[in-house]
């Protein structure tokens, strides 16, 4: 693996008056990595990425891209970096192709063949001559990827690229990102969708209200995720709860806000518990999975859920305790 990090952000902070939008965020992305920045709306993901592109100046901290900072090399810091922030925007009165031609001029120009190539990659060849004002949201999103690829990037930065797309569009966008990553591109992706990050990324930084609450690999995160929950509805929940306490001590079971029981444990433990309930003559009225374990962990980390943030994952708390 190359030694120079694609992204090396250290202690980055941005304040707007009393609001700290990004608080002392450090993040390293190695070349070739597919890295996710995950967090709910307002977590500071987009502000961080805007600082990475130089659209916003940080109040503190440094951001280096491929070992160089904007203060040292000016706009050359973005050499080899492409991407877009939130939904990509273009000039609606120009065609897709004219938009790309113009943006290429801002990079020193591109050959017509290269324009054809990137338009083909995002499947916009047939609509390239149409004005962007008539494009659908998904088409503008793909044109944004094409504009990014024009820069021949080694690092592709995408801010919630699937946001606003319909299911087919989301599928296509994810497939495109995975294909680009498979070609050796480093990808830094922000998202509020745990499933998206889990599907695409190797490593992740999870943010909450401007601060980092988790850094690490998806595999490690998966290991630390809570057990899968099963929501159990019976004709007699009190009896079912008593049966759990009597016969299934290894199972964690609690009542949710609706009075239903939620059982946490291995699949074998849950299977055995359901068998006990039914055998005991308690009618089973419903059985369904709660949110996926990683999703549950994400909510724990970012929302201070009833279960709270697992202490070993709460970096913010650990920093505060230091």
């Amino acid at each position, binding site marked *: 693996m190359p030694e120079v990090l694609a992204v090396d952000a250290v202690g980055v902070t941005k304040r707007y008056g009393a609001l700290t939008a990004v608080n002392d965020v450090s993040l390293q992305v190695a070349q070739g990595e597919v890295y996710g920045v995950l967090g709910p709306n307002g977590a500071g993901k987009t*502000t961080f990425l*805007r600082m990475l*592109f*130089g*659209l*916003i*100046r940080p109040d503190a901290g440094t951001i280096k891209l*491929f070992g160089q900072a904007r203060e040292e090399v*000016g*706009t*050359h810091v*973005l*050499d*080899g970096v*492409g*991407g*877009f*922030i939130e939904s*990509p*925007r*273009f*000039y*609606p*009165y*120009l065609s897709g192709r*004219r938009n790309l*031609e*113009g*943006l290429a*001029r*801002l*990079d*020193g*120009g591109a050959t017509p063949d290269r324009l054809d*190539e*990137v338009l*083909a*990659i*995002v*499947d916009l060849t047939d609509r390239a001559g149409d004005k962007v004002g008539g494009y659908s*949201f998904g*088409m503008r*999103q*793909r044109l944004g990827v094409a*504009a990014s*690829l024009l820069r*021949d*990037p*080694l690092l592709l930065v995408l801010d919630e690229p699937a946001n606003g*797309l*319909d299911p*087919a*569009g989301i599928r*296509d966008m994810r497939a*495109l990102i995975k*294909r*680009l990553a498979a*070609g*050796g*591109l480093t990808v830094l992706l922000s998202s509020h969708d745990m499933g998206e990050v889990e599907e695409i990324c190797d490593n992740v930084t999870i943010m909450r209200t401007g601060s980092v609450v988790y850094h690490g690999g998806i595999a490690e995160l998966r290991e630390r995720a809570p057990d899968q929950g099963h929501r159990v509805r019976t004709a007699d929940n009190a009896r079912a709860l008593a049966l759990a306490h009597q016969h299934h001590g290894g199972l964690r079971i609690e009542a949710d806000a609706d009075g239903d029981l939620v059982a946490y444990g291995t699949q074998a433990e849950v299977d055995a518990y359901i068998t006990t309930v039914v055998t005991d003559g308690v009618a089973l009225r419903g059985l369904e999975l709660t949110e996926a374990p990683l999703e549950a962990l994400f909510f724990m980390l970012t929302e201070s859920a009833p279960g709270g943030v697992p202490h070993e994952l709460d970096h913010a708390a650990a920093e505060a305790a230091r």
Partner: protein
Amino acid sequence: MSASVQTTAPPIAGQRTPRRGASLAGVLAWEATKLRAQARARWVLLLSALAPIVIVAIINGQGRPPKDTLFGRYIHHSGFAVALLMLGFAGQWVLPLLTAIVAGDIFASEDQHGTWKTVLTRSASRGQLFWAKTITAVVFALVVLLILGASTILSSVLIVGHQSLTGLTGQLIPSGTAARLVVASWASAALPMLGFTCLAILLSVRTRNPAFGIAAPVVIGMIMQLFGTLGGVEAIRPWLLTTPFESWHGLLAQHRFTDPLRTGVLVCAVWSAVCLAIAYILLRRRDITEG
């Protein structure tokens, strides 16, 4: 969206190599391309060429000349008088409006379309974008003035005639001299027009609102003119951006005086420099949080 994407992998560079980067000429060409694509800019140029012909024809057809207006009483005597009458009228609000239509929009439209983040994530610097947009707006203003002035002078001469012109002090100015002085008078409007261009640029950068960027310079110009007519402001009047629009009057006197022209150059230069400096700093220091 439901279109599928191709399955071929895109070519990806193996190593980060310094980009050629943007040149000011490249950014300028891009700004010119965008301007040419805008119907509004094309309409301004077309109207600048055609409207004077219609207006001169209407003025020529009037039985009672506007005697209380500069050169108004001579509009049937010489086409040059018509061209100067039109210049006096244009300086009041037409020229500020024509330049503001592009200059007041050229920065704010990036906010309107949310495209700052698109252009500022390329290799072009904020400085390059600023100067490319400024040059584009200035060139547009000069082209508009050239077309408007040429159309006005030609249509006035062709419709009314190229008779000798009666000057401001009653002297008779031969046709050839009058032609040169009329052209010089129209050319003198370039300086305050550039001043208004820079003012519109500042308002466009500051307000991020195209409508405000276009309308405000016109309103400010009218307020300046109103202020200039008040008594007791003699010390301030020369420093108003509207005053240089009248600096050509000295050219049409028996004994020509050019002090107002020289003062106008200084005043327009100061207004332009201050407006551009503030606009440049605002753009350089701005956090792009929208779009």
